[in-house]
């Protein structure tokens, strides 16, 4: 029932000439919603028609309002023949359906045609009158807010974070319907665009219903993807995190968490009242005891198989951990129980968030991931997408059990993806196992947080690094030491995560982008044989990717990875793996040891020499990197370290560890040697190649930094200039004698050259940082590799950096110490860092990987390759991997961070003093960024989600400048359409922008190409901080800003 949609067509401009005779156009417009269509009058002979139509009114169900897009078609009237379509505009009216977002959509929209691209613009006004519907059984979910942002949006605070929501809908792909043979490409493209738009609407509505059921009012970290399964159909799926959000309305309220770039916000909450809101569950006990280690790749196969029993295991783990010791053992247990009960009700305790309110994340266990290889079959009944649901359920189940194995009850930074080639599909999911603070997860009274905070003397920057699993019952062989920060809890030596660096994490120096790249040839095969082949390759790929990551991390002298994203793409005759992450040095984790090369044949003199030469090169590189990234952890004298640090142990051969019991682990740990060295055994050419490739990564030119997280650790004085960009490259491999090595080299060069090009292009922005660098790789055809990168370059002020950093660090130190003094024995140390490290001995990694890519079908059922866990098979994997001869010895290094040298507190210190008043205040500038914030500015309003899907096709590829010209123009058009929609909503920026899909297909022989692009983000209104101050002092009552504004100004 209840909604009236009103549309007015005002005018058009820059229309194309449709009548060659007159060089003019007789344009009119059809406005369609659901099954109702209205038409404007024909405006004769003009390229800039002024229709000024009446209000077209559609009376529709709110269910339809959510599902259907408004479809506006501009046509050229032709008296004698059929009217020619000029192009279309699809408008998603969802943002008008909830109160706090936009109230009207009004502006110029590019008129888009799938064959010709943008052809002029049309000015449209859209409004919705919603009536209240009290029907409890309604199918609509109007009013639920959606955010792509993977943290709590800036002008809201999280009251409760309910948890995971997911949904998928399937349909036949119009491109593969029989009718497609007789209709024009345009008609087919439009059918597809419209279908996907409808499906996304439906999906969003269904997710909204689930949120309502959970009593939430918003979905954060909403990620929607399309799987173009070809013949077997079209799947649209989405995941997100249901939350109850409160709009911050009083100036006194501060955002609890988000890593907002604006410094004031961060400091204040820290200071006065760290978590003003949300403590819901009663007694929150000290969380500190728990330690977590992250295991980089998820899982450990053994446990995964026995997922059911894990439940019971977990609590035991928590309690048993030796480290829990003195403080609050019982509390901790209590906490656990609470959390557990909060989470247990959920089928999947997953969170798509990557940044959290302070105090939310207690410990981090490590990366968990799972992959599964499936054979696609036609979806027979679109209303019952059971198979696809079942597939994902399986994977999620596995992830869940992996998390349990790590002693964690939740998974954060969770995401899912697919890679499809012909009828084979790899489903992947990954996240970071974590222990969360229950108070955000439940309804309950909000208590004085101060009290609570005091209770939990969770050391500021290191708590999350502490291992969550039982030291005596470690899920994988890890090397533990006492935290270098608080000295009380155990930490791993290396930490891998998929989340952003927590705001309060103590980091030394700067971070950098680390990538592992890998190609593997695969025989062409059909169906099941193909799936099996892929499944067999996956564990090796995962293992190698992890090894590469680990090596590169060591080479950088760092000890933790954030934002880890591993993508495995499948093609006809190869598999590609691309892992990206941001390496940092966490102060809480031990200093990484170097890399040591060991030759296989020590007797050969020249060989030895060669080895020692390489060794030297590696050592030099490490030293250089340490300098480059300003990694200079203070040396710590033994006494300080004192007893808590156990004897460094060495693990001789980690390879077996996985399946070993916990006691063995301890035994293994008995070795000596301070330096923890990573030994690379060079026993064949492969290994040699690996070492070489390690050294070929060139650091960015000076003045440039790059990371794939939101914020670069160690840089905190962003200025306001940002440049978001997308770059796409496709290379053709020469088909002659392709080998894995040649492939690897090609792929590596491709990525490196791409980065180099970016640095060169953006050189005028120096000093600057490429943030949120997002690489995606795909194999569109035989011998073609496509890499797409989206990132944002942000300038920063070099000169201010030092000063600001210092003051901030000092401030935060003081604060931290006052806050914690009573509770902490070593107050000073606390503040400085929390660096989790995570030991991942490669050995374990491969084990993990083996289990993680459970793609290996133990049994093939019917069409789909089963994805069960392979505990039993693991051992054989291990054997295989052993052959690879990677040995790791670990020892611990005793380093402590002293207070004086405390590194700047991560993102907390954004200073934007210098942000100049925005130079171009021209109307219509719309910023786009993959980040959740805009440097130097404050987001005052979220206008709704932008989720757009476009198809572009051409049959005159050469005339349009070849593939590059075609795609360049198309991407520029996509940006333009996104900006136009945002501007029409009244916004001036898109945050959390992401290009989720860019599928490009060409057929140069036929002079044809086609591309599909799917983008999304959050439309927002931002105000420059400089302007904000003026506004608030001069007219405090002004508009909508006071709520957020107030807070800032107080500082």
């Amino acid at each position, binding site marked *: 029932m209840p909604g009236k949609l009103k549309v007015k067509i005002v005018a058009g*401009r*820059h229309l194309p000439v449709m009548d060659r005779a007159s060089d003019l156009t007789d344009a009119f417009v059809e406005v369609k919603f659901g099954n109702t269509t209205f038409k404007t009058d024909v405006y004769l002979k003009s390229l800039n028609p002024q229709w000024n139509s009446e209000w077209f009114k559609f009376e529709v169900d709110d269910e339809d309002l959510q599902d259907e897009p408004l479809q506006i078609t501009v046509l050229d009237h032709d008296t004698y023949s059929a009217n020619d379509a000029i192009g279309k505009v699809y408008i998603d009216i969802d943002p008008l359906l909830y109160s706090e977002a936009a109230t009207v959509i009004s502006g*110029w929209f*590019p008129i888009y045609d799938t064959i010709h691209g*943008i052809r002029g*613009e049309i000015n449209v006004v859209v409004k919705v009158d919603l009536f209240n519907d009290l029907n409890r059984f309604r199918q609509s979910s109007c009013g639920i807010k959606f955010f792509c942002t993977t943290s709590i949006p800036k002008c809201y605070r999280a009251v409760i974070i309910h948890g995971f929501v997911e949904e998928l809908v399937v349909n036949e792909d119009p491109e593969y319907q029989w009718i497609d043979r007789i209709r024009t490409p345009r008609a087919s493209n439009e059918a597809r665009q419209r279908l996907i738009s409808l499906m996304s609407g439906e999906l969003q509505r269904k997710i909204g219903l689930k949120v309502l059921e959970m009593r939430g009012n918003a979905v954060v970290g909403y990620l929607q993807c399309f799987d173009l399964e070809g013949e077997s159909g079209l799947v649209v799926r989405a995941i997100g995190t249901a939350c109850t959000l409160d709009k911050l309305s009083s100036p006194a309220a501060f955002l609890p968490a988000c890593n907002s770039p604006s410094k004031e916000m961060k400091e204040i909450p820290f200071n006065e009242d760290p978590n003003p809101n949300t403590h819901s569950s009663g007694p929150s006990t000290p969380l500190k005891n728990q330690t977590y280690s992250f295991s980089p790749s998820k899982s450990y196969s053994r446990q995964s198989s026995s997922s059911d029993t894990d439940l019971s295991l977990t609590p035991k783990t928590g309690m048993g951990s030796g480290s829990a010791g003195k403080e609050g053992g019982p509390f901790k247990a209590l906490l656990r129980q609470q959390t557990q009960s909060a989470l247990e009700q959920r089928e999947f305790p997953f969170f798509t968030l990557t940044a959290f309110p302070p105090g939310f994340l207690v410990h981090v266990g490590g990366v968990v991931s799972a992959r599964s290889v499936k054979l696609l079959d036609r979806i027979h009944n679109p209303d019952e997408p059971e198979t696809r649901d079942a597939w994902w359920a399986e994977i999620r189940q596995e992830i869940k059990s992996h998390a349990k194995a790590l002693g964690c009850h939740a998974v954060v930074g969770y995401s899912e993806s697919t890679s499809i080639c012909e009828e084979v599909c790899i489903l992947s999911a990954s996240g970071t196992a974590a222990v969360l603070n229950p108070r955000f997860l439940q309804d309950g009274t909000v208590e004085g947080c101060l009290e609570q905070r005091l209770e939990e003397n969770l050391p500021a920057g290191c708590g999350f690094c502490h291992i969550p699993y039982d030291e005596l019952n470690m899920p994988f062989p890890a090397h533990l030491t006492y935290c270098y920060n608080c000295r009380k809890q155990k930490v791993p030596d290396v930490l891998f995560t998929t989340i952003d660096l927590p705001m309060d994490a103590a980091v030394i120096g700067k971070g950098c982008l680390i990538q592992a790249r890998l190609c593997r040839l695969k025989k062409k095969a059909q169906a099941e044989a193909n799936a099996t082949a892929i499944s067999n390759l996956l564990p090796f790929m995962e293992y190698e990717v992890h090894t590469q990551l680990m090596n590169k991390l060591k080479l950088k002298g760092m000890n933790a990875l954030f934002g880890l994203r591993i993508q495995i793409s499948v093609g006809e005759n190869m598999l590609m793996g691309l892992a990206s992450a941001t390496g940092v040095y966490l102060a809480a984790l031990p200093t990484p040891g170097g890399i040591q090369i060991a030759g296989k044949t020590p007797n050969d003199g020249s060989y030895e020499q060669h080895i020692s030469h390489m060794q030297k090169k590696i050592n030099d590189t490490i030293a250089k990197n340490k300098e480059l990234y300003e990694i200079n952890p203070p040396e710590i004298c033994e006494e300080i370290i004192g007893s808590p640090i156990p004897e460094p142990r060495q693990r001789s051969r980690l390879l077996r560890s996985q399946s070993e019991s916990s006691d063995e682990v301890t035994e293994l740990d008995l070795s000596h040697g301070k330096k923890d060295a990573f030994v690379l055994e060079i026993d064949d050419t492969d290994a040699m190649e690996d070492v070489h490739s390690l050294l070929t990564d060139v650091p960015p*030119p000076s003045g440039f930094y790059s990371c794939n997280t939101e914020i670069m650790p160690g840089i905190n004085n962003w200025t306001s200039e940002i*440049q*978001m*960009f*997308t*770059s*796409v*490259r*496709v*290379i*053709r*491999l*020469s088909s002659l004698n392709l080998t894995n090595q040649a492939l690897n080299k*090609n792929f590596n*060069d*491709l990525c490196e*050259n791409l980065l*180099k*090009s*970016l*640095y*060169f*292009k*953006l*050189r005028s922005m120096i000093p600057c940082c490429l943030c949120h660098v997002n690489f995606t790789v795909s194999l569109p055809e035989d011998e*073609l590799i*496509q890499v797409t990168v989206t990132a944002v370059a942000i300038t920063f002020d070099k000169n201010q950096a030092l000063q600001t950093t210092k003051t901030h660090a000092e401030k935060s130190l003081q604060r931290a110490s006052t806050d914690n003094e009573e509770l902490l024995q070593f107050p000073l140390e606390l503040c400085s860092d929390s660096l989790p490290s995570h030991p991942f001995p490669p050995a374990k990694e491969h084990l993990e990987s083996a289990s993680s890519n459970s793609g290996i079908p133990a049994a093939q059922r019917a069409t789909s390759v089963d994805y069960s866990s392979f505990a039993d098979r693991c051992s054989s994997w291990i054997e295989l991997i052993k052959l690879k001869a990677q040995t790791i010895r670990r020892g611990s290094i005793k380093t402590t961070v002293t207070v004086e040298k405390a590194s700047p507190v991560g993102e907390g210190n954004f200073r934007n003093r210098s942000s100049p008043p925005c*130079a*171009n205040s*021209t109307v219509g*500038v*719309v*910023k*786009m960024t993959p980040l959740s914030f805009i440097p130097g500015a404050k987001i005052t309003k979220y206008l709704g989600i932008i989720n757009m899907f476009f198809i572009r096709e051409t049959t005159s590829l050469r005339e349009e*400048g070849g*593939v*590059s*010209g075609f*795609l*360049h*123009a198309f*991407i*520029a*058009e996509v*940006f*333009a359409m996104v*900006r*136009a929609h945002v501007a029409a909503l009244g916004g001036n920026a898109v945050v959390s922008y992401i290009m989720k899909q860019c599928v*490009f297909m060409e057929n140069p022989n036929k002079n044809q190409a086609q591309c599909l692009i799917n983008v999304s983000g959050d439309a927002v209104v931002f105000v420059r901080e400089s302007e904000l101050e003026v506004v608030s002092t001069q007219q405090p009552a002004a508009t909508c800003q006071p709520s957020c504004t107030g807070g800032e100004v107080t500082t």
Partner: protein
Amino acid sequence: MASELDIFVGNTTLIDEDVYRLWLDGYSVSDAVALRVRSGILEQTGATAAVLQSDTMDHYRTFQMLERLLHAPPKLLHQLIFQIPPSRQALLIERYYAFDEAFVREVLGKKLSKGTKKDLDDISTKTGITLKSCRRQFDNFKRVFKVVEEMRGSLVDNIQQHFLLSDRLARDYAAIVFFANNRFETGKKKLQYLSFGDFAFCAELMIQNWTLGAVDPQADDMDMDLDKEFLQDLKELKVLVADKDLLDLHKSLVCTALRGKLGVFSEMEANFKNLSRGLVNVAAKLTHNKDVRDLFVDLVEKFVEPCRSDHWPLNDVRLFLNQYSASVHSLDGFRHQALWDRYMGTLRGCLLRLCHD
């Protein structure tokens, strides 16, 4: 491992001024890359040639896409596809419409027709400006000409409004359009010493004083065409040289006033009648299109060259022309004072500008 496809698209369109210049100058991608390499950019940035190649290609592609919009600059401002800060938009437009002195001198006063366009190869060879660049410049002239041709109102204002050029560049285009419309001969050898600036200066004076717009701000084509009535009337000036008494009187008035003030007095005195005849005959002949076209040739032949051969300093020329114009007011028998002022006021300015080496 050749890149099949290689693109970079920024939310704000990146414009590299150096590459833009190379593109405008008509260099091919490979030439542009070579030139950039020579500029030392690789050393400065540590980039490789491949990077440079990809970057250059990318910019060229962007410029090609922008070119369509640059043909109608207001479109560039309103289009949604490329987000470009206003200052950059202005730069793009200004540079696109900028032209080479050497090129414009070749084309100035020629009909902007296909015929001329065919000669661009020769111009390119002669000036060393690439053919591509010549074409762009020629097309710009022609495009501006076509748009403002039939418009009312000030020529400069029209150009500025439709092409969003700076005042300076709009004035230059006004001169180009004006010259093209009136087909003034500028290519003769004896005119070679004159710069585009000289002609543009004259054009501006002529537009201000000699066109229809000078008398009737509502007239069509007001700034493009010379005022035919005025040209017709100029015949009346002939009396100044045809009537011997008037000529002698004029001469004596001028000589009296200038005696002792002119370094080249005697030469002036000796040449007065020739000079005066020259200037007045130029005026009288302007009814014929052919003679209008030869205006500058005539002025140089009849006035500039005699002065130059006698080595008149510029200041003397100025004093002479001032006195020569002013003295006519004292000629009682001469009734066309206003006409004379309209003619000589402009011509005096032009001649002063034309008198240099």
